[in-house]
């Protein structure tokens, strides 16, 4: 292991030395605007494995990579509009932006769910090194997992074994770093614009409505439920809602709940994905003794529709049960699968001309 004091060596020599270590698959400890980081060639599997051995006990935590700019980032991840906003306005800086990985880095760098964190350090030397190297380097803190945050080289050495120490090839010592928090990590993959699709279900147009207040949107939900309630004797009724934040999805669900006689407050299910409410007894329904339920599901934070299956969605599609599925476009294929046992009402909520106006387009699928 070689320790280089940045105060003593000219920058171009530092850069060429680091690049040669990275090229040979070595491990480099480097300063950033937050803590000391540890880097290897993020595309070199052997080097990454060596780094994983150094970090020890990571329990599948993903690492991040350091790049120079947005253009370089876009070779390794899908940069959506949220990510673009962050790159343009907040980077370089102490921020790790998580996006969907394009699979261009070595195994073990991206997360299990296929996402990858991008750092553009606000530390010119590191950006120069990455630029000269031409490939991203891993950007994870240089301490062993669960040990003290490293603000000095000694912080690192105190927390690691001799064996771990022997894995490091080069240390760039910038002295004591200002004690800043590690970078804030934000995930933009969840905000992927969903491709609007309703699968191959052939929907029949039902009608278009314009509402001016949340109360009116609620009333549409109430009226819609009343329109379809008679199916509950032998089917499920699924309201597939499609519409952006603030479009009125929860208001509509409140109307549906009210029409079902549910008196509990319908709260947003975003955090626990699914909330269920007992339906006290529906007029015109013959299944009250089966204790039917309203399931209010928010798929916003689901990556895959298989995760909705984990919540026993398919098994719950039975007569008498009512579903409201928010961001339904994400799980359209799953809806197709249950379409024999359910009436599916596709409700699209759009913003109107006026700020408070909503356009509600309803179509349905009844086998």
């Amino acid at each position: 292991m070689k320790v280089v004091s940045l105060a003593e060596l000219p920058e171009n020599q530092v850069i060429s030395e680091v690049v040669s270590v990275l090229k040979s698959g070595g491990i480099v400890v480097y300063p950033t605007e937050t803590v000391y980081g540890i880097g290897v060639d993020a595309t070199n599997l052997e080097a990454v494995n060596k780094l994983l051995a150094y970090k020890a006990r990571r329990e599948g935590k993903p690492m991040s990579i350091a790049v120079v700019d947005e253009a370089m980032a876009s070779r390794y991840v899908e940069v959506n509009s949220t990510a673009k906003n962050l790159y343009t306005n907040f980077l370089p800086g102490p921020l790790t932006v998580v996006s969907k990985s394009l699979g261009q880095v070595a195994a073990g760098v991206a997360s299990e769910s296929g996402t990858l964190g991008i750092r553009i350090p606000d530390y010119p030397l590191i950006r120069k090194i990455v630029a000269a190297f031409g490939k991203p380097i891993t950007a994870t803190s240089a301490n062993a997992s669960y040990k003290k945050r490293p603000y000095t080289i000694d912080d690192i050495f105190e927390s690691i074994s001799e064996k771990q120490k022997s894995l490091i090839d080069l240390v760039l010592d910038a002295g004591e770093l200002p004690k800043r928090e590690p970078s804030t990590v934000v995930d933009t993959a969840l905000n992927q614009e969903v491709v609007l699709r309703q699968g191959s279900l052939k929907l029949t147009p039902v009608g278009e409505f314009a509402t001016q207040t949340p109360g009116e949107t609620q009333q549409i939900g109430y009226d819609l439920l009343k329109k379809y309630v008679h199916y509950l004797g032998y089917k499920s009724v699924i309201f597939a809602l499609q519409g952006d934040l603030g479009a009125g999805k929860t208001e509509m669900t409140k109307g549906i709940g009210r029409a079902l006689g549910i008196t509990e407050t319908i709260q947003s299910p975003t955090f626990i994905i699914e909330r269920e409410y007992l339906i006290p007894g529906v007029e015109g329904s013959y299944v009250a003794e089966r204790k039917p339920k309203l399931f209010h599901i928010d798929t916003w934070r689901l990556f895959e529709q298989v995760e909705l299956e984990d919540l026993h969605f398919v098994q719950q599609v039975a007569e008498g049960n009512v579903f409201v599925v928010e961001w339904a476009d994400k799980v359209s294929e799953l809806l197709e699968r249950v379409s024999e046992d359910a009436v599916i009402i596709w409700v699209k909520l759009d913003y109107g001309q006026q700020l408070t106006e909503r356009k509600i387009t309803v179509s349905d699928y009844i086998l």
Partner: protein
Amino acid sequence: MKILAIETSCDETSVAIVENDRVLTNKIASQIEIHQKWGGVVPGIAKRLHQENIGPVLESALKQVKMSVVEMDAIAVTYGPGLSIALEIGVAKAKELAQAYQKPVVAVNHMEGHIYSNIAKNSQGNPPVEYAFPLLAVLISGGHTELVLMTDHGKYQIVGRTLDDAIGEAFDKVARMLELGYPGGPMIEDLAKVGVAKRFPLPIPMVKTASADFSYSGLKTAVLYLMKRDILPLKEKVSPGEYKQMICDVAASFQVAAVESLIIKMEYALKKLQLEHNINDIFVGGGVSSNQYLRNKFRGRFSQRYRVHFPTDKKLIGDNAGMIGVAAYYKALRNEFVDIDFLDRDPVLSF
């Protein structure tokens, strides 16, 4: 009394060992680093990782305090609210241990745990927390916004709650509108530090409603309208620096409105409750209690009249078994053990 506590309601697998109200060890295996701060759920992964982690986390907790399950007086477990398939794992483990070692089981409400995070002590018995019943507990997280009157250990009454979105969720959704990614809490808190809240004032939700209930959906919509009307049209017209400042200003304005709404409803609830109760303490629990702006505001507004408490340790802010163990200790004192044959998870459990 020694209790081994298990918490798997969300995406942290946690095992703690407590002795009375002292947390001897509080092990947390966080599943997904990026969802860590305010909790997040990815059901499929959550279930598998809970299954994988529960054994090793249990072992490492016991190892740290050099104890075995035999020495425990009871097993405690969170049985709701939370994600059903995650809760199941913890409940199953608790049953397994209870049967194998013939231990009684205490079933704990996760939200009750967040209340007890305010009085949990470390292994040395610090910090000593002075409090008295009745008290007002403020539970704020990604899934909850509740004001709870606590008249004694185990005696709760909800006096105010959100009618739609939880406060932590509002932070997340507003961050999404500002194109800041997820989770939104830390980012908004950060940007708000340099933001000027007065530049884009937002309405305080439910300010005129005569109840202690909250609505964060309306505030979210107000931010949406502000973005559509005043901010986004300027995105390409102003410099990145100016645009960034505008986003910081919106973040600050939102944070002010969100916290102010909490304070107004707390004041409303306290005023009502003081007619019948003599309340001197406020407990604040849940992930959003890590927000420093909120802490300062709460202290500023309430500390002259009330003792304002927060979780006694960073580890006790998010989901953790330590707080569950301490809540379980007080339940065990009241002999509130459950028959494990009938114990089941209850994902929509309320107080």
